[in-house]
């Protein structure tokens, strides 16, 4: 049985071996290593498409796993090729392995069918992403790593403690046989598990690390964190609450509350930010809230909406952070600098704009269809008030989405083309990657 995970893990092994034997094999150029990693990812992606995911004890997927792992692999191919093109990886030896491990972890989270195996997968993802955050050894990355790691280990501890309580309560960790809701340690355990996973999914109030880390990390890594890593967290929550633990109306209310608070709080804080990346970070957080709404409804529609929404915002988040990377290196940090964006890269600007539009839910981007599905599932469950509350919250979000959009001032005369900066081949490659993501922003509609 051939499947993407096997390919990926075999690839990881191969990469480790090649890395170790580099000296002996006289592979001096990074090029080969990156190419190998990319080949592994692409091979895994193709295998995923044609052969699907693995299905073994502890790791057997649910109905959506195929789709989610597919787009996770797609995004990781894109992000990795961007990192490679960016050249930021040149200083780091183990970036390729870390990246592969992180992707593998994320895929395992999606597939896992047991709480502890899920925890192990998350651990794998987390530890690899600590490394990714600190793969360039600069001060700001150190800060990002310290913050991320400190908060993350605490959440991991809580998660593990919660899992242990769940085990104590039910005697099993397999998703197929979790029940016994009335046992207090079990319930507490579930709460701890939620906390641990909510940390990864950046739900308020467990999101506080996210803006800082997102901002301080390299943008490509932020793209990874905000799309792949967050997807893993949300999918884990979906898996647990849709397929394992019997849910009640109470949990639904609780989750919807968390989701609304998340959306509101992040949008509220995003409006006054003056650094572009921080706005993007907060908006990325708010997206998790939307996806969580679909989850909190606990309906089949909600599940579908949630999965599609995760897909939509993952693509958009990856797009805007990668596209923003093009500008960050030119020193465009603050909103007031945004009008220079046009002269750096038109495609990058288009990426940021379309990504923002998608996050804001403007048709015909994929984000619109995501929101459409979310709204539909809300209304399908009869929560008109939540919808109206969302409308008002969304109005708030228009402030910064469109404020930023008009700040970019992309209409300020194409005639200034003379002043455009000359582009390196590297820039071209990066633009092409952004372009691919832009296309997928529209093409993704077919999955709705």
């Amino acid at each position: 049985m051939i499947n993407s995970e096997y390919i990926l893990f075999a690839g990881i092994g191969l990469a480790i071996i090649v890395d170790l034997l580099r000296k002996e094999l006289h592979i001096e150029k990074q090029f080969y290593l990156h190419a190998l990693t990319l080949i592994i990812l692409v091979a895994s992606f193709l295998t995923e498409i044609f052969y699907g995911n693995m299905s073994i004890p502890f790791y057997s997927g649910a109905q959506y796993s195929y789709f989610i792992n597919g787009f996770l692999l797609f995004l990781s191919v894109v992000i990795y090729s961007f990192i490679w093109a960016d050249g930021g990886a040149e200083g780091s030896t183990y970036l390729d392995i870390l990246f592969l491990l992180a992707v593998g972890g994320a895929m395992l989270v999606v597939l896992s069918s047991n709480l502890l195996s899920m925890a192990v997968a998350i651990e794998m993802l987390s530890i690899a992403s600590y490394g990714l955050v600190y793969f360039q050894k600069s001060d700001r990355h150190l800060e990002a790593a310290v913050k991320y790691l400190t908060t993350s280990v605490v959440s991991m501890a809580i998660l593990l403690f919660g899992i242990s309580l769940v085990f104590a309560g039910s005697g099993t960790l397999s998703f197929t046989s979790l029940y016994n809701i009335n046992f207090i340690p079990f319930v507490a355990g579930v709460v701890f598990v939620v906390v641990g996973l909510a940390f990864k999914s950046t739900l308020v109030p467990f999101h506080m690390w996210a803006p800082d880390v997102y901002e301080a990390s390299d943008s490509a890594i932020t793209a990874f964190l905000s799309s792949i890593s967050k997807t893993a967290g949300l999918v884990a929550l979906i898996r647990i609450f849709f397929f394992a633990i019997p849910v009640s109306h109470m949990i639904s209310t609780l989750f919807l509350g968390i989701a609304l608070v998340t959306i509101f709080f992040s949008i509220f804080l995003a409006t006054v930010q003056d650094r572009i990346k921080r706005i993007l970070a907060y908006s990325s957080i708010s997206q998790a809230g939307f996806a969580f709404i679909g989850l909190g409804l606990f309906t089949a529609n909600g599940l579908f909406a949630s999965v599609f929404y995760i897909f939509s915002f993952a693509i958009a988040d990856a797009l805007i952070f990668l596209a923003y990377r093009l500008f960050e290196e030119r020193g465009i940090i603050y909103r007031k600098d945004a009008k220079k964006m046009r002269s750096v890269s038109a495609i990058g600007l288009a990426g940021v704009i379309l990504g923002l539009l998608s996050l804001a839910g403007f048709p015909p981007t994929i984000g619109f269809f995501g929101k459409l599905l979310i709204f539909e599932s809300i209304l399908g469950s009869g929560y008109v008030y939540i919808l109206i509350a969302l409308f008002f919250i969304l109005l708030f979000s228009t402030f910064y989405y469109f404020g930023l959009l008009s700040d970019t001032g992309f209409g300020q005369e194409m005639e200034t083309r003379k002043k455009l900066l000359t582009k390196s081949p590297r820039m071209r490659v990066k633009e092409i990657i952004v372009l691919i993501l832009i296309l997928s922003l529209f093409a993704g509609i077919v999955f709705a």
Partner: protein
Amino acid sequence: MIINLIGFLIIPLIGIMALILNNYTKSTSQKNITIISMCSTAVLFLVGLVYGFGGFDVSLVQSLDFSFSLVTNSLSTPFILLSVFVPLIAIISLNREKSESSTIFHIFYMLAYMSAIIVFISGNLISLFLFWEVTVLSMFFIISLFGDGANKRSAMKFLIFTQFGSLTLLGAFILVFIYTGSFSLTTLFATASSIPSIVSYTIFIFILVTALIKMPVFPLHEWLPDAYLSAPMSGTVFLSAVMSKLGGYILILFGLELFPSILHRFSIPLLILGIIAVIYMAFAASGQKNLKSMLSYSSAFYMGLVFIGIVSTSVSAVTGSVILMVSHSFIIASLFAMSSMLFSRIGTHDIYKSGGVMKRMPVLTFFFVFMVFATLGVPGLSNFVGELLIFIGSYSVFPFVLVSLVGLLVATNYYLNSVRKIFYGTLHSSLKKISDISLVEIFGLSLFSFFVILIGLYPSLIIGSFGVI
């Protein structure tokens, strides 16, 4: 059936492509491209009017029933008429705008133009919503990039308000989908009765909020003065002449065609709201010192009349509303265009700071006074038909609608006052050197006047073009 409706999408898109290409080749001015592609669209419309339109349907997303389908329904034709011609004539006659040389501006203008047409012919709610949003977005950028004054803030305010309206619209659409399983308008017409009443009330209220914001009608009009004032003139023309009609269209489509019984039940309170709105707007307009904001409020005043006509649910009043929308579209567009021509020459919108312009600009004065009379509902010109039918229709529903005639009276006062202050009187010493409008501008204004007279004399053209609701 010789003309397929997809042409309304394709031709403007070709125009946009040409604009983008032209940005690199610089072979002609952007305006020419815009005008040519808009003209082709207009020709397409005229040919289609004679030979009939063919529908278009492509299913895009099965699960969401999202298909890109274009059909003409019983309402479309008058609205296509206005959305095809008004922006075209406006761009022809406005040739001193500072935004003129910008490719981006023309792209957005074309986008707004195209999507407004598509909204009126969309047979699928999602594609309707899609293009609805594109108009909003294009206008947002037109205001925020090319406006003057507090353009960024106004654009934001405009967006916040209309975006709320869009969201409620989306909410309504989703509710419709949940209960009928389809986003298709035709299916919707067939199955609208199967929607439970409480849900249809919710849908109706959502649609009402959308329409109130979009038209805009009194309590939700707060974005109007800022947006109209800050937008570049072509943007203002588009806002007042086309965007506001989207609200009327959606209200007729949903309120009247889908849920007539609900609208009927709410008729009296909504009529009272409409009357208040009309009177309020009339007085608010009469207190303005800036020509552009006066025209903005006056535009809202007429949309209030349209609102009265629609919510009265009487057939004649709704017919009147449609006619008034079409006619108001032409009239207010030309008035805004003229205020822009005036502004480009005398440099102020302030009514009280100019005077005696007629001496130097008799032609402009002629057109301005003509359009003022048209807007005041002088018979033989288009507004009269609409107003008459609205009042005839709504009077039988709620006699007190005649109170809104007071609004027309106030309108007479402030319009004539502005004419008097700007055009009559002694020529301001600083205005000695201004010249009259150019031939192109005269041509544009004549086109506007042509439509105003045409509809005024033969309202059956419009009445005949849409089916009895």
